[in-house]
């Protein structure tokens, strides 16, 4: 069913929502307790977005909602009816034209160039978070990048190279 008014939807009903995910419009029926993270991974097979802690403490689940970076594990999908979601799978498309011949977003290319990962588990979140950080436009210096990216933990400790990669893209934008 689709929500029209402020009348309550009973706990056993599914609710129809529309999301634009990586540029594709999707009409989806969800139970209200489904998180955006579980919807992406378990229902839509978009497993690029990772579940680390499921409690907002690691950043592995970072996606862009209307261009803003957020933790998908703490968002109920039903509350984002109408939103545009970008996951790591959609970053190349987001670069529209800015993507390299390999289809990568500049930040993805910079991560490859700088070897900004080891196991790669935190990487989708780091990438989406970096793009969100660039959209926000507040970080300029290395210290500011480190602080702005502190919501993304990397158990492998690839931090130095992650900051190098972001700094590279930031300086490229400034040129």
């Amino acid at each position: 069913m689709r929500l029209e008014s402020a009348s309550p939807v009973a706990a056993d009903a599914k609710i129809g929502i529309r999301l634009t995910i990586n540029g594709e419009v999707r009409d989806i029926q969800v139970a209200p307790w489904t998180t955006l993270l579980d919807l992406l991974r378990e229902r839509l097979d978009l497993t690029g977005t990772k579940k680390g802690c499921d409690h907002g403490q690691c950043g592995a689940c970072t996606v862009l909602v209307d261009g803003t970076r957020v933790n998908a594990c703490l968002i109920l999908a039903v509350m984002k009816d109408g939103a545009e979601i970008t996951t790591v799978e959609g970053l190349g498309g987001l670069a529209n034209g800015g993507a390299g011949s390999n289809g990568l977003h500049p930040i993805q290319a910079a991560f490859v160039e700088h070897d900004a990962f080891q196991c790669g588990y935190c990487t989708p979140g780091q990438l989406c978070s970096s793009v969100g950080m660039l959209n926000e436009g507040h970080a300029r210096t290395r210290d500011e990048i480190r602080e702005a990216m502190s919501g993304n933990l990397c158990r492998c400790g690839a931090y130095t190279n992650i900051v190098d990669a972001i700094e590279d893209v930031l300086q490229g934008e400034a040129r």
Partner: protein
Amino acid sequence: MNRFDYVRAGTVAEAVQAYGTADRARFIAGGTNLVDLMKYDVERPGRLIDITRLPLDAIEDHAGGLRIGALVTNAALAYDARVGERYSLLRDAILAGASAQLRNAASTGGNLLQRTRCYYFYDTATPCNKREPGTGCPAIGGLNRIHAIFGASEACIATHPSDMCVALAALEATVRVSGPAGERMIAFADFHRLPGSTPEKDTNLEPGEIVVSVDLPETGYARNYTYLKLRDRLSYAFALVSVAAGLELDGDRVKTARLALGGVAHKPWRNREAEALLQGKPATRETFQAAADLVVAEAKPQSENGFKVELARRAIVRGLEQAAAGTPQSITDKRIQ
């Protein structure tokens, strides 16, 4: 997560009404605290009322100050140009908290109403007077390194974890709420409460009341302020002790002082006697030490958090020095100057 019914409210009146007709209703805004607690079964709402579509997301000039809608995100508030210019204490406190992702989602109202990070409160396998009144408080004599040193009770020694609220307490904001009985204004100092014998109540909000806005008065202490947050790691961690300080100076003397502490009590902790002591005194380390001594004289540490007393004393002195010198704590370069 338990099963709940879902209401998407379009107006404040609809939200308030939907609350009244349900068993265990909860408003939800950013969800960064409520969804977390629902995953642990600490919160088991019968109904969730989605308030994110209410028209409460503006920051407006109001009575010489600012009126901040309850749905303004922590990030939007921190990066608002007026806040940066006139209420930089508030900006810095917000940016010292959580992560960029969380601040993008977290709302002003939700930040006020976030619940304690006490380990036992989060663990439904243990007793906890705040979660289940009358079951006891295992933090007393247990793991209490992060707990309160001021204003606690036999029933609960939890702290309020917000950074933003510490700045709002120092600035003497006002909380505007709307509920079944209409609208009312609550002074920030009266919004949160001490645990006493009813720790299940964090605030003085009545059931069904919704925060509509937080209003800032004209004076922002933007020249002489600091937000100094001390924690186990330099980012993305809650405060063990934090200090919000705002001074108005008259030459080298203190004209008025505002001082609030975070991470040490069930609410942002203010000591009016210490603020009064500072008034009219030279803005020197000796003066600040006297104020700090007065504040910590009241401290009652628990078995594991005695270190907070000395930490608070020193943080107050350093915070007041930073404020007086006009050199607020940097939120990126974490070295404490």
